[in-house]
């Protein structure tokens, strides 16, 4: 998996490309933790380049959301493919995550 980190407005966008599987999930967790350590508490994950996620990736999403729940924090997901959305729905994650159709729509409210 490739992760590109860009600061946009008030937030930090991590653009993800590849498969978020058992092997890649720790990389994603480290990347998110690095952003938080740098002081950014508004993080958007752009899933445009992701067609596959397993429970290893879901675990990272849930752990990150739990860390970014204070007033002023934001943690969002955008541009989910049908395949990724299907797995999030099966896991019951769509009710606890902020999911946006596009980067612009996510960041507009931040």
């Amino acid at each position, binding site marked *: 998996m490739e992760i590109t980190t860009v600061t946009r407005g008030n937030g930090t966008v991590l653009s993800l490309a590849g498969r978020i599987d058992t092997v890649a999930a720790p990389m994603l967790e480290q990347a998110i933790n690095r952003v938080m350590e740098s002081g950014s508490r508004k993080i958007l994950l752009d899933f445009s380049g992701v*067609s596959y996620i397993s429970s290893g990736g879901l*675990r990272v999403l849930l752990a990150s959301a739990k860390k970014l729940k204070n007033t002023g924090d934001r943690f969002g997901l955008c541009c989910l493919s049908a395949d990724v959305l299907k797995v999030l729905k099966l896991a019951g994650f769509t009710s606890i995550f902020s999911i946006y159709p596009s980067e612009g729509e996510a960041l507009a409210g931040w």
Partner: protein
Amino acid sequence: MDRSPTLEIPADPGEIPRVTAMLEQVMQACGFSCDAIQDLQLAVEEAVANTIVHGYRGGAGDVAITIHATEGAVEVRIEDRAPPFNPLSLPDPDRESGLDERRIGGLGIYLIRQVVDHVTYHFSGGKNVLTLVKRKPG
């Protein structure tokens, strides 16, 4: 192409992509849709990861994955010599509560049940054997 290949891997999560790649190759050759391939890749990844993390507890061991594909269905048998454990005995995870109450983990087996058509477990000859079946729609 051999349509019932077996892959033996050491208990290392880094080996899982080799398994899912082989599964994709076999299923593509049998004309399965991308959706069906992704579903079974997810189930197999979850099952193998579970064996490595919970069965062998991060220690040494081997996992054998046998893929038997026909025109109508594909069956994947996953065998290990970790202590006997039936993953299908686990309760369904909480998928309803809010973020604070939601526990991390426990989703793997649930996802397997959702994306395959049939899953069975038995312990025989000192081995845990989990069998997953995905049928071609129609």
